[in-house]
């Protein structure tokens, strides 16, 4: 099933032509989110807190397709460096960067997920 998933990704990725446009997209999402988070007032009371929760929710939504987009980006990258799947997957540098990226992403998503279900409890 995972193979099918990856194959599907490859298909969609092969239609992209601009170099690494996907990863640049992901990067621009982060910048947008940063601006949004910074312009939001400190959640010092209930109303501001609700506003902040909405911001977090929208940030969360914006980044929901990061995983697929990064996979497309990696595929693009592989096409550019013209490596086969095995040697690309063995590339330590790419591994390290992607590992770091995903670990950090999951951390960000995890801490921000905490606040969302709590809103509904109060």
């Amino acid at each position: 099933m995972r193979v099918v998933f990856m194959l599907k990704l490859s298909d969609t990725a092969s239609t992209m032509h601009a170099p690494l446009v996907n990863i640049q997209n992901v990067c621009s999402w982060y910048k947008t989110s940063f601006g949004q988070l910074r312009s939001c007032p400190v959640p010092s009371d209930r109303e501001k807190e609700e506003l902040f929760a909405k911001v977090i929710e929208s940030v969360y939504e914006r980044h929901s397709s990061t995983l697929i987009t990064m996979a497309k980006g990696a595929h693009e990258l592989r096409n550019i460096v013209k490596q086969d799947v095995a040697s690309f997957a063995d590339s330590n540098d790419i591994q390290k960067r992607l590992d770091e990226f995903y670990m950090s992403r999951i951390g960000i998503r995890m801490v921000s997920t905490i606040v969302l279900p709590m809103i509904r409890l109060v």
Partner: protein
Amino acid sequence: MGWAESVSPNGMGRNGMGPNDVWAQMGRAQTGWAESAGYLCNCQIMMILVRKAKTASTSTLVEAVGSGLLALVYKGGCSRATTRHGYIIHRTVICSDESHSTTNFMSRSYPSRCMSSNASSSQLNKEIDLYSKKKQTSVSLRALMESGQGLHLYKLGMGGASSEDGMKVAEKILIQIACFLHRELPVRVAHRAVKLEASPLFMKSGTALQSEG
């Protein structure tokens, strides 16, 4: 799903398996980044499921997410595993960069600077640069759980769990966590943006990549 079953809260599995066994049992040997990406995808799907289920309390949430992160932590090898309190993850670093401070994440002050929403992109980039130099605060699952229970409220001078003012304890906890996120998320997001942009692998043209080998 086999996912939740194969990882018990104390992390060792029901048959006293070691972490490597848990990992192997899940059939997700690390064969490349694509595999890890798929794995993380599972983990996130689980987190979303937890969210959708509208869990009854934060500690349940943390527990569920915690067991999900278990194998990830083993894989990353960044955890000091301990079985205290039945959680294998006691001091898990949830963000992965080396630049962590381990300051207690609930005891910091929260500066209130607002950026005008129509700031130009160069201003934005400057801000991002500035924030990417700040240290990320690592959060342990335990700290998350405890703050969800209100055990860290006293640190903000908001009174203990038994204060008399009108605000409900749950609201205080919520605001405390929201304040923390308000301070912490821009830092983490800025780290992401800068690292992605700075990475020659990801951003430069094909020729540069090839010469790099």
